[in-house]
């Protein structure tokens, strides 16, 4: 299959007029990369839960004592209620955006730090590179969740969704830094960079106009994987009871269901929905990142 793909692509570009080439080839590419499409669709479905759900249901019902407690799912209460009378559908609608917010915020901060440090290390080299590389290598051997537990346990009770994102971001920049550094290192030596430099382009312009566009797939992949590990960390901390106590985040819902032993009491409607949501979030992100990987590393296209 790989041979036909490689042979077909240039022919297509030659045959189709310039205006249609790009869109046509993007669609053609997406049809060959179903992982990316399915992953994006799953993520989109989770993202629209908030705008659609909050119109259909009153999210204030996520507060305790808003319904009768311990009700099994019914027509009026599609996901039933928990021990403290929270409407679990409202909990899901209110909590999912919070979890996504933590993930995307921490992922974005981690990526931003990674971009700055990765460029500094890759471009300046020398002692700057050595220090950054040492820091990254050292921190990668540290189990992030445990360090986060110390921090979160010390500010338990006063932690909010935004602080949570900041705390997680403090240990979410190492992988992006490493990826970006190694890409900058290889790109710096490419012929087109030399051509740009001989044409009198400034270093800053080279970074913006030549390196950054080629780095995009890597940046996207790094972003997705840091969002995924941020969500992993946040749901993990919350399942340990270290999340924002009064916010109905998905992880806190799992914590409360564990805390009140919903599992062995047969209250499946309490813990199944958060699990379904978290699993589809992780699988969606995973599919996106392996789809992006295929764009970034053409070698992978030759896959089994």
């Amino acid at each position, binding site marked *: 299959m790989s041979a036909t793909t490689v042979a077909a692509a240039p022919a297509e570009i030659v045959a189709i007029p310039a205006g249609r080439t790009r869109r046509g080839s993007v669609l053609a590419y997406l049809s060959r990369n179903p992982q990316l499409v399915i992953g994006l669709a799953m993520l989109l479905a989770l993202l629209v839960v908030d705008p659609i759900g909050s119109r259909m249901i009153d999210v204030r019902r996520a507060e305790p004592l808003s319904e009768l407690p311990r009700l099994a799912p019914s027509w009026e209460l599609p996901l039933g209620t928990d021990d403290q009378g929270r409407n679990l559908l409202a909990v899901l609608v209110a909590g999912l955006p919070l979890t996504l917010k933590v993930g995307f915020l921490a992922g974005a901060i981690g990526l931003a730090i990674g971009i700055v440090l990765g460029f500094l290390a890759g471009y300046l080299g020398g002692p700057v590179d050595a220090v950054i590389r040492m820091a990254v290598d050292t921190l990668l*051997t*540290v189990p992030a969740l445990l*360090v986060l537990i110390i921090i979160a346990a010390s500010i338990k009770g006063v932690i909010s969704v935004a602080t949570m994102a900041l705390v997680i971001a403090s240990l979410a920049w190492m992988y992006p830094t490493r990826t970006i550094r190694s890409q900058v290192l290889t790109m710096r030596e490419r012929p087109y960079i030399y051509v740009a430099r001989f044409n009198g382009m400034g270093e800053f312009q080279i970074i913006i106009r030549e390196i950054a566009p080629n780095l995009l797939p890597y940046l996207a992949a790094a972003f997705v994987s840091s969002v995924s590990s941020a969500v992993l960390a946040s749901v993990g901390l919350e399942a340990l009871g270290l999340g924002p106590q009064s916010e109905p985040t998905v992880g806190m819902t799992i914590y409360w269901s564990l805390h009140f032993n919903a599992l062995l009491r047969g209250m499946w409607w309490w813990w199944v929905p958060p699990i379904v949501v978290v699993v589809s979030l992780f699988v969606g992100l995973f599919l996106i990142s392996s789809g992006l990987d295929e764009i970034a590393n053409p070698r992978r296209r030759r896959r*089994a």
Partner: protein
Amino acid sequence: MWAEYLSRRLLQFVIVLWGAATLNFIVPRLAPGNPLRERLVTAMQQPGPMQQGIEEMVRAYNVQFGLDQPIWIQYLKYMGAALRLDFGYSITQYPSKVLPMIMGAMPWTIGLLTVATLLSFVVGCLLGALVAWPHVPNFLKYVVGPMMALSAIPYYLLGLILVYLFGELIPLFPLSGGYSIGSQPELSLAFVLDVTHHALLPALSIVIAATGLWALSMRGMMITTEGEDYMTFAEAKGLRRWRIFLTYGVRNAILPVVTSLAIRLGHVVSGSVVVEIVFGYPGMGNLLFQAIAGSDYFLIYGIVFITVLALTLATLLIDFTYPLLDPRITYRRTH
């Protein structure tokens, strides 16, 4: 070259431990409010026989940490204590010291994790290599593909699903604890079987998720060996297929996967913490959960420090055995 690598790696080891200990020292002092004082004050407000213990505890802490001394002396003393693995007393279970509590829980976790990690590593690498091998039946690819997607899911979610499956639907396994209530921890066949029986479900939830992870990285590496000259040469020599697969393909592809084992170990441990809680398994994760619930800060810091110590030590060992696996290693960093 070897000496340089060794010293750099050891330096990294020391930095991690120093960093972990320093974090333990700084964070409580930066956090809003003083957790120890708050805890002691609330405990003191409760009437009952605890009074005596609290007074002793305050005195013990004042002596141990010298809380009236300048901060840098406190820091040096703290570091000295951390070097001796002395984390003081548990707040919730005074007068138990933190270290024996951790040591009691540690064998459970180490046993569970060693078995689960080795099993998932071997099975995962084998599956990943097979999927990238052109001569395997197609059905395998349809089995391993979804498994790789499972690797993105936190272990404890699988654990919850397993508890539900085997607790509600097919009650085959015990759902909680490390051994049956009433049985005595001893070295007999019956007890070992009992422990294994209890460990199966927690181990399974780690293995299922982690296998996909290893399969994923192994597949990636195996693909790069395909089409290499030595593979063609091995085929031209007329070697048997399984021999080419194992000693030519897997042998070369597995090396980077072993390095990633070192990096992912922390990930595995972090994930298993919550698995233990789901299954009420009597290891470090459960101890940590109880410590967090009871705001037992010294226990929390002790558990985190010991775990970081164990992990960095394990990582160091894996890194040092690496040259045994790969004779080409020169220990000069390339990009």
